[in-house]
């Protein structure tokens, strides 16, 4: 029997999504042979034959080899695993670039993915260790075994060969491993929480599979918390951040740096800044202190302690602004609002309120790449991607959601909420009223929360499309409101990302009370509050702004999408947001994550544009990229086209 080593699921139709280590259901479309399912792209050389049928449930947690022969075999298998990691795992590819040695890469992956090693994680990471079958032979050596060499040549020689390779790897690896075990606060044995910070066990094996986050960054000084280690590791995890960083280091400027990298990865709106500037010029005379105006802002209201969750006046102004953004379809109650310094802390605080460490949210993917950091890091909450397909224009399917829920439950994960973005990010479309009703029904039935991130609510550019907030559906449907929470921020709908204003709007009083208290860690500075109160209360300005901004968005969107189309790049239908979701799969060599990563690298180094690859958004189909066009001017578009041609027309 031939067994694909590594990750195996009893039902072959349910492979693991390697990028999240969560089981996802991928219906086998006629055209799509599960490109990211790891086992489909193993080179044949790595298949192993197992003579007696291995029992898939057999687990071997015993790391001490009983006899030398077995030890050798295990080392061979370890070697296999390393190879496989290198070929299938996104993290390893990147870390290879950064010069990490392979065994560390394995560790990195294991530890990255297992925040709280769920049963499933344990299974997948311990499976390679299992030595159930008595006889295992490497396929490329098959010829030797079966034919000419006989037993001695066939088994002993190759084994010895691998043994020496193993020794070599071990010696190469030693310096980086000895460091974490040096005396340091981190490596003091931790009785309470052994897995995150315990030093590598001195088992003598060169490959440690401890799912420990403390081992993530072997080069860093070890005396920090495991959380810090997870956060402070180099940006290898998400290409989204790597791209942003590299773009920052070599940013395009039409005079200073004409060959710099063009930023298409940052959802930031620079189309309508002039309108805000006009307003400031005309209306914001007295600056901070008011000056001649009768309603002079006193210094007392500016510098002294203010309510941590935002001043009442700003809450009223923000509620009014949100109402205008949603075109008057919903009215928001200022007392149900907590203000924070940006949507990032708003999302984190809400997650802290809704879920305990180890709980999970279901998230239709592709989703905004920042969530992995914003939500998971400090809260310990898991995000379970629920894949949407290009054939459905990436719309949410309740059936898939249902299956993901059941799967997660089977894995022992407690699902606390469904997290959606509306308008969606990165795919850029508004959710229909029907979808929202279905989602509400789903969360009510499962008795979980619904978090709706509506930061792009005012940035709709489709002709016929109207944004429907979940709040609006709630009003008309009479559904239990206390499980519904809305995240908003002014950073997208107004070009004031630097001002850091995020909103938690919840119908649940306990959540409001708790998050108002948590807002003490993330308050908005008073001068900014003062300025925004007067700006957001100017209803005429806001409605003018929203209208003009939408016109400009629409124009820019159609120009950009047309330009891409001329290059032969199609975009998913979209009607909202600052970006389009472009299908570049025809430019990737291998239809896989690896191919996508290569294209991304090529775009960054050859074409010198930074786009966000689908894999950092947990898109299961390779080849999709998010391109933000709102940081560009119309004149920049031909330049972007020129740059892209370097990749699309170059030798494939």
């Amino acid at each position: 029997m031939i067994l694909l080593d590594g990750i195996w699921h009893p039902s072959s139709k349910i492979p693991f999504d390697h990028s999240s280590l969560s089981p996802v259901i991928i219906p086998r479309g006629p055209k799509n042979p599960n490109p990211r399912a790891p086992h489909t792209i193993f080179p044949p050389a790595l298949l192993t034959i197992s003579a007696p049928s291995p029992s898939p449930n057999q687990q071997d947690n015993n790391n001490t080899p009983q006899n030398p022969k077995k030890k050798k075999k295990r080392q061979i298998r370890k070697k296999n695993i390393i190879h496989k990691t290198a070929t299938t795992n996104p993290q390893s590819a990147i870390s290879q670039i950064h010069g990490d040695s392979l065994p560390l890469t394995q560790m990195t992956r294991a530890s990255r993915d297992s925040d709280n090693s769920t049963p499933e994680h344990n299974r997948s990471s311990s499976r390679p260790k299992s030595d159930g079958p008595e006889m295992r032979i490497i396929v490329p050596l098959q010829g030797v075994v079966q034919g000419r060499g006989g037993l001695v040549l066939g088994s002993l020689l190759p084994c010895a060969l691998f043994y020496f390779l193993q020794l070599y790897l071990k010696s190469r690896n030693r310096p980086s491993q000895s460091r974490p075990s040096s005396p340091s606060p981190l490596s003091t044995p931790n009785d309470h929480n052994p897995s995150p910070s315990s030093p590598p066990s001195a088992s003598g094996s060169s490959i440690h599979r401890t799912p420990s986050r403390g081992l993530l960054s072997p080069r860093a000084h070890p005396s920090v918390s495991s959380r810090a280690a997870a956060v402070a590791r180099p940006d290898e995890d998400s290409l989204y951040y790597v791209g942003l960083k590299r773009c920052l280091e070599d940013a395009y400027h039409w005079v200073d740096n004409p060959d710099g990298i063009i930023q298409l990865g940052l959802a930031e709106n620079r189309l309508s800044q002039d309108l805000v500037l006009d307003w400031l010029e005309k209306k914001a005379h007295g600056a901070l202190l008011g000056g001649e105006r009768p309603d002079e802002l006193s210094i007392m209201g500016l510098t002294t302690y203010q309510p941590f969750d935002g001043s009442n006046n700003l809450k009223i102004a923000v509620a009014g602004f949100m109402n205008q953004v949603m075109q008057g379809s919903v009215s928001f109650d200022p007392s149900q609002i907590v203000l924070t310094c940006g949507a990032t802390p708003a999302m984190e605080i809400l997650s802290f309120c809704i879920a305990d460490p180890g709980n999970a949210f279901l998230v239709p993917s592709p989703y905004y790449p920042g969530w992995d950091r914003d939500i998971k890091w400090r809260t310990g909450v898991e995000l379970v991607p629920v894949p949407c397909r290009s054939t459905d224009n990436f719309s949410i399917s309740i059936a898939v959601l249902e299956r993901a829920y059941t799967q997660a439950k089977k894995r022992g994960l407690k699902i606390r909420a469904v997290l959606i973005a509306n308008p969606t990010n990165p795919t850029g479309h508004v959710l229909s009223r029907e979808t929202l009703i279905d989602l509400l029904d789903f969360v009510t039935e499962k008795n979980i929360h619904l978090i709706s991130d509506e930061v792009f609510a005012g940035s709709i550019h489709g002709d016929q499309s109207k944004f429907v907030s979940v709040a609006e559906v709630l009003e008309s449907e009479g559904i239990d409101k206390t499980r519904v929470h809305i995240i908003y921020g002014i950073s997208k709908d107004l070009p004031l990302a630097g001002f850091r204003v995020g909103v938690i709007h919840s119908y649940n009083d306990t959540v409001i009370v708790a998050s108002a208290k948590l807002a003490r860690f993330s308050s908005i500075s008073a001068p900014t509050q003062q300025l925004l109160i007067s700006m957001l209360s100017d209803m005429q300005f806001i409605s003018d702004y929203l209208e003009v901004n939408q016109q400009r968005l629409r124009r820019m969107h159609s120009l950009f999408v047309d330009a891409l189309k001329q290059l032969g790049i199609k975009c998913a239908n979209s009607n909202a947001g600052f970006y389009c979701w472009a299908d570049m799969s025809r430019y990737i060599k291998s239809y896989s994550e690896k191919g996508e990563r290569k294209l991304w690298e090529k775009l960054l180094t050859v074409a010198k544009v930074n786009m966000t690859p689908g894999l950092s958004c947990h898109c299961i189909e390779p080849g999709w990229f998010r391109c933000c066009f709102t940081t560009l001017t119309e004149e920049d578009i031909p330049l972007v086209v020129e740059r892209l041609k370097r990749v699309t027309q170059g030798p494939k």
Partner: protein
Amino acid sequence: MGYQSMRGNSSQLLSRIAAGDGHGENSSYFDGWKAYDSNPFNPSSNLGGVIQMGLAENLLCLDMIKDWIKEHPEASICTEQGLTDFEAVANFQDYHGLPAFRQALAKFMGKARGGKVKFDPDRIVMSGGGTGAQETLAFCLANPGDAFLVPTPYYPAFDRDFCWRTGVRLLPINCYSSDNFKLTKAELELAYENAQRDNITVKGVLMTNPSNPLGTTMDRDTFKTLLSFVNQKRIHLICDEIFSGSVFNQSEFLSVCELLEEEPSYDRNLFHIAYSLSKDMGLPGFRVGVIYSYNDAVVRCARRMSSFGLVSSQTQHLLAHMLSDDDFTSEYLAENKRRLHKRHGEFTSGLEKLGIKCLPSTAGLFVWMDLRQFLKESTENGELELWRVIINDVKLNVSPGSSFRCTEPGWFRVCFANMDDATMHIALRRIGDFADKLKEDTTQMQNKKRFNKKLRLSFCRLNDGAIVPHLMSPHLLSPRSPLVKASN
């Protein structure tokens, strides 16, 4: 689908953080705040209200800030003079912070410490106020369940800022009035050993210097003891130096940075500073906190975490201008110290005239007031009883020592910098009236007490003798013998 029936369930679906009381606001300490909130003193409209003396806020130099902002309209991006910078600033959301802001902050932090140390702008990490700085450091340095040692009495909000979301614990190092609440090596080691005995991983020591609530600064010897201790145990030291610019007697303040420069043998990776502009610049509304760490991993980690507490770019821009104005900051720091010194002197001498002593202090916006003489009983309950009288009858919101985990009852933290002179005098008068009345009461009480004491004592003796007579037997005394102990 039974929507109605599920309504009740939904609140049970919240996390322990949302449902629990880690925010600490259910403690009796907050009663004082509630009393103040419901009836705040106002010199013009509510003379009988509660005077807020529980908030360490500096309002003495607001006029200087106000004048500066008026004179420098270009610092604000929403004035005609400052509009040119609008586009560059409005969308700026990089968590490193505006370079000019970080440079200005580094310069100011050096200045606030008397210019004796230099700070590297690249190590400066922003956070949402001093509160956020504490939490971020806790997230960076410890895992849930790990502990930090903290000398008592300590700032009560540490329990919330440092522990609430991080799951980190604080273990007290007891300090006593007999040593003027100085940290001693014996107590430090005792606290560490106790933690080890209880199988708690100690990740470091957290301290405020100048101390909140004591208003004292740490002397060189104690500091060196502490530094060698953490260096030897390889644990972290977080120095909260949030009041470093509010030391009236500059020569006395010693920053941890100075010692680190003097003693290169210490492992710098273990030292971290929390700072904020809320106290020294009197700008708590601006929510600017700073983490300064000598540990690269912590800097990197804290910087990424700072996206959860970024300072608005508009405020960064304004402060970059303000703090890089050398003349202004020098003048401000000097004047602030002068005014604090004056206010501190007036307040403590006023108390002294009333026969109330304070712990001698040289820094901060508060004094550590000794009311032990007025306690009916020397327990925490006695202290809280007295405190309730002060809140409800004297109408002053002061903070009782027990909320600072002080080991001895009868101490109170009284803030003096968040009011004008007139209000301070009213507060002093109220304390005076109260003290007079209490002294009368105590003399009466003492007479009564003497009577009571006799009665009680005789009862005690009776009890001891009557109920546990076998205690007297040599047999039961034997467990104290060293022989038995040795056999155990």
